[in-house]
């Protein structure tokens, strides 16, 4: 690929002679739409530059351009694009192959699918060695084990012989990094290396990258998670709509963001400090006006829930193990825990969508889980659900209006006419920040945030007392997440809705919950008020979770 | 004579393999189906054979004597003939074969050909066998020239399994069955000890070639193509569209089968054809001659006599001229018969009933694709005079299962029956009675006068008288329009020019390879 120079007159930054990589006025367009609009940056050996920004701001495109793999149909222009002495703008495909892997290591965004599932991990990790003619077969095999060991993969010989699907997400991510650093490239680009990971694993990966940096590797870290960035990066570039809106030393940018967008981004990260406030639009300090919680008889009461699943290997696993909890009217109970700890299963049992091997769920003191389907059906409208993945919870054929109309008929006062139904649908949509224009939109054409709001509107439609929210924000960008979280709190304040709120994001849980359950391997390991759990954790596991959690403030304070 | 042929170029060579592409693969090599006669002729010898003038000539029997009452035939057998299993072909063996066909289910077509005249067969001494009939039956000798009457080794028949007798019949013929690669070919090996060639043979002695590969190639295009590319030396049933080309490039033979031609039985007991006028109108109403000429590209002759074909002895050529295409007459006959109404589709009606003809035909086996086109042409012409003819191609399975037999199954349906003798008329037209049913009379036409005439012909000892009677019978059949004549049944062969003395049996058109030789 030959990259042409950008049009003259584009902004240029000061030259930095010792830069390993220098990018000036980089522009990338796909079929006429420019998605990277003249950005410039540089990086020196042993330093880490973080590129942050919302989804679609052009981070990945920029990264791919640096290895000449922008994608088909892309047109790339730059005033300067140099790796050491090499002008990357005039590199042919053959020379690119020499650069990739050996000069630049690249960790792709989707760790879980970035290893060839059908090949052995060892082959994948050793591929750059082979491609660049490093050593012979035997020495390569040794080197692979070494590399896996270096990135903290336990039992590296065994792992090298396994296939990616036999490895957990964290291990896969580490193997991927091992492959990227196999030839010890001077520049490492890591695109969202931690998004798919649990906090504890995330912390390990960040340590790994830090070690690499220590050895003199220049790292470009791409993330939309500011707290991750805070732990590793020396500099931060904030991207928005294909432009770098702010660029500076990490501590400076995080502590005293100059651009309004950066400020909003930082404010939108939920945490202990945002508790009891709204997240969006500089309203950080506006406190919520809570309704009182009725601590009398619990609204929902789960006693000794137990669920056993037979796995694909035929072995029974106790997925929910003697879980009890209660939810009082008007409060928010959070459930946290790592992936697979049984949160969703617990919620589905609570909703009586799934039978349990043991235990009982009662609603307002009355039987619930023990009712027959037929008897439960009329009561269902008192409990709403918002699913982790709203898209799959919508019939793809139904437009928003029909989805909501259907939910309205389940409420205590079903609309008596089409006109009334439409009125109420529009009101619901407005309540969640959407409008009449969305009535006829199909779910496929909504954005992630919009879908989540429709899901909430659907849950609200039958006027439930309790809404079970299963990871309602995990798929969302921080800024959209902030809007949705605000919506939840507003609804609680206005209507007194009760929440059972599930998330693996500790910040979200801390931000929202009154009381918290911590789950691990199907058991509740700790329970208490949000502040008790997060500030004075008793259980060893909870403590481990909390130390692993990267915190924005910590980083800014530590470096400032 | 061989001098002619050397003049044609090429010196004869001994040995070699003739590759012959046939169409259908029979279930067994010996049996009552013409497909079986074709191949069993290579392996088995008959008592007598027919020459090109329809005269009976010696074969295994060197001479024969007919008793004055016409009921006893005494055959003198060639001396010293041995079956290929080494056992002698003597009078006992011949008598056993007659018994096998007649009484042991050995060959139902052989049986039906001489039923019910046959009484018994017995050996007088080693070389003399005596056949006794219940009535005098003039066609008897001619009938036993058919391939169904090949003599097999009684020892083999008695001692071997049904499977072995099916796959490798033991006779005294010019070839033996070496191997049957089912689905592909039968390998026939020369019988080096052959002594019993017929009087009509083109040379004396064992077969000149060493082997015949009798291949089964059902697809006509492939079959003919295999000859043009030199892969085969002789092919059966050349597609008529290729006939002209074949005539110029190869030695071709068009054999018109004697016996009942391809003609439709007309159901005279049920449906519209119970009325003779309608039957006649049906015959007049379509230009069968032109249709046949077009459909078969002028190769296969039209046959106007539905009773027997022009290749049959005592053929009535005048009867063949009846019912020349005459749509006006057909219309008049139909009007006369009361079919005066017309429905919305233009078909004639009578009392609200449509002039409907159900016309199933055995597709493939009897009516090939060319024949089907002829029927479609006729269908269009019948439509013009108001017949609604529904053509139904019947599959082999349906035909064999008898789906289209019986008076309720059809109004007209074509079939053929090869026979070297006009006595076939008796087989087909003998009245079917409760006591003595005749499943072959598929027009269900019981005409005592006709029966009397045929029977008289069969039993007449005077050939001239017999001939006259047979012709009279054909006229009766034609007059009553109980069969719709279409075209002759044929066998066509094309042989490479370097293959000489390949000939066909007159009786049924079986190919004969025992005399054939290659030239260089």
């Amino acid at each position, binding site marked *: 690929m030959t990259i042409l120079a950008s049009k003259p007159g584009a902004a240029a930054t000061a030259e930095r002679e010792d830069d390993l990589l220098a990018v000036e006025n980089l522009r990338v367009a796909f079929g006429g739409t420019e998605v990277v609009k003249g950005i410039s940056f540089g990086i020196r050996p042993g330093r880490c530059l973080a590129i942050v920004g919302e989804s679609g701001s052009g981070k990945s495109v920029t990264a*791919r351009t640096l290895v000449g793999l922008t994608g088909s149909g892309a047109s790339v222009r730059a005033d300067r694009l140099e790796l050491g002495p090499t002008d990357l703008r005039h590199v042919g495909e053959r020379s690119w192959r020499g650069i990739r892997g050996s000069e630049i290591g690249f960790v792709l*965004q989707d760790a879980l699918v970035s*290893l060839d599932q059908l090949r052995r991990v060892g082959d994948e990790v050793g591929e750059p060695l082979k491609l660049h003619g490093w050593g012979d077969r035997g020495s390569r095999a040794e080197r692979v084990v070494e590399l896996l060991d270096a990135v903290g993969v336990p039992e590296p010989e065994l792992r090298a012989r396994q296939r990616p699907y036999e490895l957990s997400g964290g291990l896969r991510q580490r193997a991927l990094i091992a492959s990227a650093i196999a030839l010890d490239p001077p520049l490492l680009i890591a695109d969202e290396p931690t998004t798919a990971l649990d906090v504890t694993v995330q912390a390990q990966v960040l340590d790994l990258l830090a070690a690499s940096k220590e050895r003199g590797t220049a790292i470009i870290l791409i993330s939309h998670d500011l707290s991750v960035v805070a732990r590793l990066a020396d500099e931060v570039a904030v991207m928005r709509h294909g432009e770098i809106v702010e660029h500076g030393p990490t501590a400076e940018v995080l502590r005293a963001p100059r651009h309004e967008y950066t400020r909003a981004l930082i404010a939108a990260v939920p945490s202990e400090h945002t508790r009891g406030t709204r997240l969006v639009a500089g309203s950080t300090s506006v406190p919520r006006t809570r309704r009182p919680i009725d601590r009398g008889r619990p609204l929902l009461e789960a006693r000794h829930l137990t669920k056993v699943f037979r796995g694909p290997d035929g072995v029974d696993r106790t997925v929910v193990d003697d879980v009890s909890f209660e939810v009082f009217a008007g409060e928010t109970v959070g459930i946290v825990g790592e992936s697979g700890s049984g949160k969703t299963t617990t919620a589905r049992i609570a909703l009586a969508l799934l039978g349990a091997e043991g235990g009982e769920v009662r609603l307002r003191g009355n039987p619930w889980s023990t009712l027959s389907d037929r008897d439960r059906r009329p009561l269902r409208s008192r409990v709403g659900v918002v699913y982790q993945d709203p898209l799959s919870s919508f019939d793809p054929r139904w437009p928003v209006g029909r989805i909501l109309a259907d939910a309205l008929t389940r409420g205590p006062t079903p609309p008596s006419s089409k006109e009334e139904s439409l009125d109420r649908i529009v009101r619901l949509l407005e309540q969640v920040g959407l409008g009449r224009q969305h009535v006829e939109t199909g779910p496929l054409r909504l954005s992630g945030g919009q879908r989540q709001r429709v899901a909430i509107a659907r849950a609200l439609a039958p006027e439930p007392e309790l809404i079970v929210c299963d990871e309602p924000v995990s798929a969302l960008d921080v800024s959209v997440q902030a809007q949705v979280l605000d919506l939840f709190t507003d609804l609680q304040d206005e209507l007194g809705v009760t929440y059972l709120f599930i998330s693996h994001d500790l910040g979200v849980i801390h931000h929202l919950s009154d009381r918290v359950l911590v789950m691990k391997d199907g058991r509740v390991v700790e329970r208490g008020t949000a502040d008790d759990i997060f500030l004075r954790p008793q259980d060893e596991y909870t403590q481990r979770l909390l130390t692993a959690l990267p915190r924005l403030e910590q980083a800014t304070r530590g470096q400032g | 004579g061989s001098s002619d042929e050397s003049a044609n170029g090429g010196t004869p060579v001994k040995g070699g393999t003739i590759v012959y592409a046939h169409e259908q693969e029979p279930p*067994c090599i010996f049996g009552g189906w013409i497909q079986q006669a074709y191949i069993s002729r290579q392996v088995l010898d008959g008592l007598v054979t027919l020459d090109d003038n329809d005269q009976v000539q010696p074969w295994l029997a060197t001479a024969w004597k007919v008793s004055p009452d016409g009921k006893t035939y005494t055959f003198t057998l060639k001396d010293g003939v041995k079956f290929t299993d080494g056992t002698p072909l003597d009078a006992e063996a011949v008598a056993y074969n007659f018994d096998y066909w007649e009484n042991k289910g050995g060959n139902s077509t052989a049986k039906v050909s001489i039923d019910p005249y046959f009484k018994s067969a017995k050996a007088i001494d080693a070389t003399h066998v005596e056949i006794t009939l219940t009535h005098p039956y003039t066609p008897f000798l001619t009938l036993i020239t058919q391939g169904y009457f090949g003599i097999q080794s009684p020892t083999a028949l008695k001692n071997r399994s*049904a499977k072995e007798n099916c*796959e490798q019949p033991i006779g005294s013929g010019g070839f033996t069955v070496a191997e049957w690669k089912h689905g592909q070919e039968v390998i026939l090996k020369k019988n080096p000890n052959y002594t019993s060639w017929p009087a009509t043979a083109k040379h004396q002695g064992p077969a000149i070639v060493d082997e015949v590969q009798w291949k089964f190639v059902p*697809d006509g*295009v*492939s*079959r003919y193509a295999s000859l043009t590319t030199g892969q085969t030396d002789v092919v059966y049933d050349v597609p008529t569209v290729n006939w002209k080309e074949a005539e110029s490039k190869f030695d071709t033979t068009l054999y018109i089968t004697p016996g009942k031609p391809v003609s439709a039985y007309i159901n005279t007991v049920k449906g519209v054809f119970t009325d003779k006028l309608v039957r006649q109108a049906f015959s007049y109403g379509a230009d069968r001659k032109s249709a046949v000429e077009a459909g078969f590209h002028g190769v296969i002759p039209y046959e106007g006599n539905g009773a027997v074909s022009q290749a049959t002895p005592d053929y009535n050529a005048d009867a063949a001229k009846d019912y020349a295409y005459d749509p006006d007459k057909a219309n008049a006959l139909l009007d006369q018969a009361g079919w005066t109404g017309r429905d919305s589709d233009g078909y004639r009606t009578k009392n609200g009933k449509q002039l409907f003809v159900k016309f199933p035909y055995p597709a493939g086996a009897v009516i090939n694709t060319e024949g089907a086109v002829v029927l479609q042409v006729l269908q269009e012409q019948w439509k013009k005079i108001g017949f609604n003819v529904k053509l139904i191609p019947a599959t082999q399975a349906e035909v064999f299962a008898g789906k289209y037999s019986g008076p309720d199954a059809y109004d007209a349906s074509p079939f053929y029956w090869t026979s070297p003798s006009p006595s076939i008329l008796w087989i087909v037209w003998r009245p079917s009675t409760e006591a003595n049913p005749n499943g072959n009379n598929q027009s269900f036409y019981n005409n005592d006068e006709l029966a009397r005439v045929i029977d008289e012909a069969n039993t007449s000892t005077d050939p001239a008288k017999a001939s006259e009677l047979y012709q009279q019978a054909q006229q009766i059949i034609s007059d009553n329009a109980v069969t719709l004549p279409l075209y002759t049944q044929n066998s066509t062969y094309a042989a490479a020019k370097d293959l000489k003395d390949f000939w066909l049996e007159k009786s049924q058109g079986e190919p004969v390879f025992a005399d054939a030789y290659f030239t260089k």
Partner: protein
Amino acid sequence: MSIALDTRPSVRSGARAAQEAARKAPALLGKVLSAVLVLIAAASVTFFAQLLIPGDRATTILNLQTGRSQKWSAAELAPVNEKFGFDHPVLVQWLHYVGGLFQGDLGTSFTQYRPVTQVIGDQLLPSLVLTLSALVVAWLLALTITLLTVKRGRFVSGLGSSWEAVTASLPPYWVGVVLLVLFAVKWPIFPVIGGTDLWGTVLPVLTLAIPLAGFLGQVTRDEFEKVLDQPFVTTARTRGMSDTGVRLRHALRHSVLPAITLSGWALGALISGAVIAENIYGRPGIGQVLVTAVNTRDVPTVSGIVLVVAAVYVVANLLVDLAFRLVDPRLAVSKGGQR
């Protein structure tokens, strides 16, 4: 259609592997049992289906022996009925048949008087050779064309996918006739009637392989295109792998999976096609026997052929499962069959 794959990690330790083996033994037995059941059911269905054919079996046999179409008297039919046991109740005939199956006896052909095992045995090999070669050739054709043309610019890939679309729509018999005329008659490169030698097998194999190759190619191309967009392919490129390397080492293996699954099904289609190819090229084979046997109502032979074809099908699908597992160790056998 896409399948939901369970890609959850499951690390197997030695102890668990042993457990697994112990669990799989009855599973294997179950598989064999159900295969046997399928075979017997297939043969039985055929057996009964043929009893539904209008007309009397003895009549058919007699007509067949004489090349005629007529009714026969009870006296004429009686010996045939007795010989083949048609006078027994249908259920008894069936039990007798199924009983025979377990002893490897498929009955005796009504028309050829030979054991059906022999009737089929003679013909099975040429048919298998034909269908399997066709499958192999189809695969080679499909892979070559896909590898060479997929995502190689608008024109080349367009050419490749058009070729596949056209060939996939070709009726096999038509291909057969056209190939025959072109390459055996017009340019006599290959024999018209081939028999079973290698040279004579070329055209029949191509007749079956060309349409199938188009079909397999289409499926493979779709998958190939999807795979080339996968992150792991991009990852391989970021390591410095060439385009050819990516295609051969990464994409190929993934993209053959659906075509492997379809190969089991394709074998059935090939057997159908073989009937036609055998007809055109005068090849021996099960197809010819089948058509004849159906036409002559040779019940034991037809049932026998169905049994054999079903067995081939069952075995083929087991092999497909196996191949699938070889290529993609992620999937349990039970998932290999679905698409």
